[in-house]
């Protein structure tokens, strides 16, 4: 569907909205850790850069040449590098926020659900529920 940009498109579409969500709603928690999150993401990306080609060499998986950009960096597919950076950035951000909540004995899951509803209401205005309804639904999950 997206030709040579398919891998890149999937990577961006599955990670950027979630990264945006976390950094929008939990910026006060994440902002002070920005340098560490960036440093760790780069470290993890470098590790992925070293080990991921072995997956291809060991025939664990393979890519369709028609769906990747066919740009390689020292034999590593460019999209794999982007994948490692964005996925680790997302996971490190998620773990950092979750630890913050757990330290305060608060529920990160409840906060995630509440904020997800806020986003849904923004995208689909017809889903108008009152604040108390959303809170009730969040409570019902637990």
């Amino acid at each position: 569907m997206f030709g040579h940009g398919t891998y890149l498109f999937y990577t961006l579409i599955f990670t950027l909205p979630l990264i945006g969500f976390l950094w929008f709603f939990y910026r006060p928690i994440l902002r002070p850790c920005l340098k560490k999150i960036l440093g760790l993401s780069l470290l993890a990306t470098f590790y992925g850069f070293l080990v991921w080609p072995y997956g291809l060499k060991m025939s664990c998986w393979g890519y369709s040449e028609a769906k990747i950009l066919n740009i390689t960096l020292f034999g590593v597919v460019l999209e794999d590098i982007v994948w490692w950076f964005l996925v680790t950035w997302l996971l490190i951000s998620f773990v950092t926020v979750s630890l913050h909540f757990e330290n305060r004995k608060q529920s990160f899951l409840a906060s995630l659900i509440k904020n997800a509803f806020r986003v849904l209401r923004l995208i689909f205005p017809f889903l108008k529920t009152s604040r108390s309804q959303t809170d009730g639904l969040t409570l019902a999950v637990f």
Partner: protein
Amino acid sequence: MTNYLRFILIFIWTPLIILGGLNFELLVRYRKTLLLTIFFTLLFGIPWDALSVGTKLWWYNLSPTLGNWYFLGLPIEEFILTMSFPILVGCLVFTFIKKDKS
């Protein structure tokens, strides 16, 4: 042992065991965070993977996987990797961010 499992063992579980061993206390204390991270990784990662396999962006070799345990076109090793990856990232955070604060 299949090639894919060997890959996970060498490149994911080895650093995970080392970092996990160094942060065992934190792993136990923050197990809720790890479980939540694994849950969301599966929630978004598996459909992404299944879509990629379904659209033939990538594929898994049939021979070097654990038998014929397939779900949504994905071998069991992919689920093992998807669940191990957030634990590895969690250990990284414990090692470089959390310890700094404690």
